């Protein structure tokens, strides 16, 4: 069953504007937060077990407590550079509930004592940008941003920034570079952003969904938040389901929910009565699960990690038996090749080689040793670069080849896909 905590009012159009948002209890939690000490809020968020909803799943309260104890100005950045293929939850959150994000951000900013925040929105999301920008103006007019918010003595300014098309800016240090007006190239950590981030000042970077969840944790308390989810994966999470299901869309479910039920109950199963072949459970960088694995998986950080995959951003891509896995892997690897920022050799060269090798297979020019070569190149790309993009390309490559080796070998041997599709020319698809 869905549990609509963050998304309770998403089907009400009035929730988008300040008036409607306030009528539905909006900004009441901010008042409550100002009655608490900042440290208390951090402790509640820690106790709630909230983990970052953008992809890495790092405990939010712990991230906040890495800020140094000094008087330097500190920044809060909201990561709204949603770019992991298959993910479309943050866009919905910004377009339907911009004030929910703003309220969560002001509470979080108060907790970490930041006077300035930015929402970094991916460039293609022009509608999100307009909606959030308008909501910020409303929040200033309503006294929820600016000087002495609600008489608390706490000042906070907020602004939006538009990216310009670069997947890598979803990586927190890449985003910081981009916001600083540079190429969006990630930086070596440490120092972590909490110590030296935006303009070399202490900076917290959190995902849209993470910041919105903070509001509900403060509203209901850590224990109430923990009623949903598992011990290590607390609360609810939004999952973006796409691919070959009858009812694709965003679903808010408690963490620990069976993937099988998400696909076959909530999403209505597979289109055209087809059979399940595979599922990518956490965005295109998450290792693919076979149908058997998918039927056993639960949607929480620990189960998917145990299965050698990851929860990632919560983008569930459901693949039916009409798809050729070699073809899909080519789509994925082309993307990571295109998006590599070029700083680190293993990534710049590795993504290029992976793309080239799988292209040669899918166009009918593969050699049997290419299948092994894919694995070898991918393994050499893991854990050797400044950021996780290299691994993000290598992980799906290894999982596709390992779990669907027969399809790769068949393609090489026969010069055509094992999956017959009427009128389909795989080579032509990749011109």
């Amino acid at each position, binding site marked *: 069953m869905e549990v609509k905590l963050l998304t309770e009012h998403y089907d009400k159009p009035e929730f988008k504007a300040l008036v409607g948002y306030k009528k539905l209890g909006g900004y009441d939690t901010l008042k409550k937060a100002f009655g608490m000490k900042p440290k208390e809020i951090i402790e509640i968020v820690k106790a709630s077990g909230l983990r970052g909803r953008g992809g890495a799943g790092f405990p939010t309260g712990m991230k906040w407590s890495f800020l140094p104890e000094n008087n330097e100005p500190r920044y809060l950045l909201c990561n709204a550079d949603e770019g992991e293929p298959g993910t*479309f939850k943050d866009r919905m959150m910004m377009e339907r509930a911009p004030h929910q994000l703003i309220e969560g951000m002001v509470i979080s900013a108060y907790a970490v004592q930041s006077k300035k925040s930015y929402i970094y929105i991916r460039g*293609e999301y022009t509608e999100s940008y307009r909606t959030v920008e308008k909501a910020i103006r409303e929040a200033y007019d309503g006294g929820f941003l600016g000087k002495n918010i609600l008489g608390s003595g706490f000042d906070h300014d907020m602004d939006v920034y538009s990216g*310009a*098309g670069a*997947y890598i800016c979803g990586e927190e240090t890449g985003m910081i570079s981009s916001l600083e*007006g540079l190429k969006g190239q990630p930086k070596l950590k440490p120092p972590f952003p909490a110590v030296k981030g935006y303009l070399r000042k202490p900076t917290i970077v959190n995902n849209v969904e993470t910041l919105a969840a903070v509001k509900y944790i403060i509203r209901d308390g850590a224990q109430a938040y923990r009623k949903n989810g598992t011990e290590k994966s607390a609360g609810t999470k939004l999952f973006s389901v796409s691919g070959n299901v009858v009812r694709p869309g965003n679903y808010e479910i408690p963490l620990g929910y069976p993937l099988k039920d998400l696909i076959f109950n909530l999403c209505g199963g597979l289109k055209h009565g087809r059979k399940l072949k595979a599922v990518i459970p956490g965005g295109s960088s998450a290792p693919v699960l076979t149908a058997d694995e998918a039927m056993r998986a639960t949607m929480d950080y620990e189960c998917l990690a145990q299965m050698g995959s990851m929860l990632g951003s919560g983008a569930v891509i459901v693949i039916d038996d009409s798809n050729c896995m070699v073809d899909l892997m080519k789509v994925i690897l082309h993307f990571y090749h*295109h998006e590599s920022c070029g700083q680190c050799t293993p990534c710049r060269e590795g993504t290029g080689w992976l793309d080239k090798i799988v292209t040669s297979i899918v166009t009918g020019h593969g050699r049997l040793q290419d299948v092994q070569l894919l694995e070898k190149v991918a393994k050499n790309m893991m854990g050797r670069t400044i950021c996780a993009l290299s691994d993000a390309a290598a992980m799906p490559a290894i999982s596709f080849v390992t779990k669907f080796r027969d399809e790769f070998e068949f393609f090489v041997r026969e010069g055509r896909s094992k999956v017959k599709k009427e009128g389909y020319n795989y080579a032509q698809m990749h011109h």
Partner: protein
Amino acid sequence: MTSTFQLSEEGAAFVKRELNRYEDRHSAIIPALYRVQKENNGWVSPESVTYLSHLMDLPESEIEEVLRFYTMFNTKPVGRHHVQVCCNISCAMNGGRELADRLCQEFDVHDGEISGDGRFTISRVECLGACDKAPMMQVNDTFCEGLTEEKAIEILREMK
């Protein structure tokens, strides 16, 4: 070389405001490039970079570096309408690539190039975050979702 490009008065005022909007002046480069693109038929010319460098008092190299890094900036002319068809995984599984090919055929244009009548540039692009409504395309700023080939052709036929 003398600069031949100029922003409108309004555009120049916008750039000046952006220079003071963020903590660091460099943060104004992206908004300034968007503005140039908007006023220059959808692309950023070398002359406009020279112009921005003077206007913003920043080295051309720093502007150029940002320009080249981000995919949303066009460094060559585009058609009056920029049609971007998502061909990433969920769209590819739902006919996105066939859609891109069909549109190119229908409007007689090669991937990434301008149609003979100057109306369209049609490009294959990566995930735009509308995977539940695959296949989809972005026409200028607007997302067109849940497409069939016929629906997409109809939308583009309406555009002059």
